[in-house]
């Protein structure tokens, strides 16, 4: 996994709560058996005026000029500023894959849906929860000044604005550790293989019905 330490990038403000994973990447694009190539279809139904189809050249499609990511000032944005309950709905990891493929590295919101939040960390994306009033302030600043950038430091757990104002955020230690070092967490878990085996042996004794049934 790609490590995440610090990041500075242009902020795109998406002023809408309850953005669901169907909105982030509609189901017709989930038919791929790969992890890459979802970027052109990120927010497909909001971003384009026509209905998106898999294996289509999206560069030829009519854009919705009202959608935030289609505005020239947000070109190259890598920090998505969002509203509450971002990523609600399905468990599809295609949602963080699409955000990542588009070029986002950080998503800031007052709250995230649990599964989406977790999936981000598996893909080198950093979801940051900030208080609603701070998010409001960032929305105002991002909309007021073109080229507005935020600087995120995962080691220090801070988000800094261009004026030098800094906000701290919480992230649990294990996720932070894996992200800072780009660790393969399967490898980390397998360091405890003996422990898993001994748990399993004990369960085979106490709950034998959990093993081998139906085969």
């Amino acid at each position: 996994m790609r490590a995440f330490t610090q990041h500075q990038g242009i902020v795109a403000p998406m002023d809408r709560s309850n953005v669901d994973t169907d909105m982030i990447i509609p189901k017709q694009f989930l038919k791929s058996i790969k992890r890459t190539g979802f970027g052109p279809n990120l927010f497909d139904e909001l971003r384009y005026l026509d209905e998106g189809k898999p294996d289509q050249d999206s560069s030829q499609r009519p854009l919705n000029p009202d959608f935030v990511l289609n505005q020239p000032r947000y070109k190259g944005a890598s920090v998505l500023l969002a509203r509450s309950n971002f990523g609600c709905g399905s468990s599809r990891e295609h949602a963080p894959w699409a955000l990542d493929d588009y070029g986002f590295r950080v998503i800031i919101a007052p709250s995230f849906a649990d599964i989406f939040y977790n999936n981000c960390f598996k893909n080198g994306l950093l979801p940051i929860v900030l208080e609603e009033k701070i998010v409001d302030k960032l929305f105002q600043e991002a909309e007021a000044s073109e080229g507005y950038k935020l600087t995120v430091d995962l080691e220090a757990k801070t988000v800094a604005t261009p004026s030098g104002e800094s906000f701290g955020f919480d992230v649990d230690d294990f996720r932070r550790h894996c992200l800072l070092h780009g660790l393969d967490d399967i490898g980390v878990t397998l360091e405890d293989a003996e422990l898993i085996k001994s748990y399993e042996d004990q369960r085979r004794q106490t709950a034998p019905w959990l093993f081998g049934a139906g085969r």
Partner: protein
Amino acid sequence: MAGKTLYDKLWDDHLVKQRDDGSALIYIDRQLLHEVTSPQAFEGLRLANRKPWRIDANLATPDHNVPTTDRAKGVEGIVDPVSRIQVETLGKNCDEFGILEFKIMDQRQGIVHVIGPEQGATLPGMTIVCGDSHTSTHGAFGCLAHGIGTSEVEHVLATQCLVQQKMKNMLVTVNGQLGKGVTGKDVVLAIIGKIGTAGGTGHAIEFGGEAIQNLSMEGRMTICNMAIEAGARVGMVAVDGTTIDYVKGRPFSPTGDAWDAAVKYWRTLHSDLDAEFDKVVELDGAEIMPQVSWGTSPEMVADVTGNVPDPAKEEDPIKREGIERALKYMGLQANQAITDIMLDRVFIGSCTNSRIEDLREAASVVQGRKVAKSLKQAMVVPGSGLVKSQAEAEGLDQIFIEAGLEWRDPGCSMCLAMNADKLGQGEHCASTSNRNFEGRQGFGGRTHLVSPAMAAAAAIAGHFVDVRELLN
């Protein structure tokens, strides 16, 4: 010290290692696999040269992409080549790694969350995961069950464990008796309407109270299924006689001494009387009416006797904008009566409501009646091949067909429209599924979430009606 909640008990029984940083390794008893969220996980295993940790903990079936007509041709009958590759890839992966798969032609094929319980592959007290957020369904059996992303599917395949942080405990109690014509679906929609789509975020919800205890396993599954729509990855109901009766005699269920030992353990799977919850919500079951969603989020629900809300009366500006946006997308007017919403299609199916009891409820409403001529389509999609054959043995298929509904083959179908079953732009659908997000059932489609009985009543009327008026 306070007693343990059901969630605490399940957590403790599956704890392999508590790490110093607050994370924990939790052992997973069962993983269900389907074609959409597993290919990249199997590919990851291959790239890292890893093998599945415990083959017999996995059970697979294709469900999201499968057609619901013309199934005699099997995989070859999937017209969309991209869908076909996904279903074929699941088959190849299961064959390569030796994982049991109910393939498209197998009568046991169906929606993962229907076949797990049906086979007894879902047993009380298990930890169950699947790359699908509606895995919360299995919590109806006193399981710790939740959806995971594809990286975690790979993690469970490789290690039989997940790295987890413990959630908070939430109790939703539904007291009293439900009225006639009010089902588990109405209960869960009413709960989501009350607590909101983020009301359970960060929590494992236990559903309890007399109204929940009186529900069948099908009703409990419907409620736990939609815990995720209230923001909670996990929904649960304590084990009782109803649970144990359902599990008994199923293909994967234990027998003999193992059964007796299992039942003894399962009887402990309830929250202790002195357990403490971080959050408690109470509803009066008698006050719950048949529900209809009017908007583009599952919290946007109203009683069938009610009206579409007026955004002008909402004080919170973000919520007001949300209502305005939803009404525009849904093509509805503020204050419009719910029963004035005209429908184009009716969909009875999905992991929320495609079990035998759901089909019986729907059939009892349409029996001897005809689908409204104004509808373009009304379809019934059973949750599995076995549900289908059971329904046919009971003659339900004939009741549906005579009333003018289509009788289809099992799969996820129009719940998320990954196969050919979808809404056209602007079409209104009474749907027994779980999500009314924009475009969920087809580009520009307008979904109204309802119970099977309400969907059946709507199919007869061509618009929403209070199903209680049709029940004698």
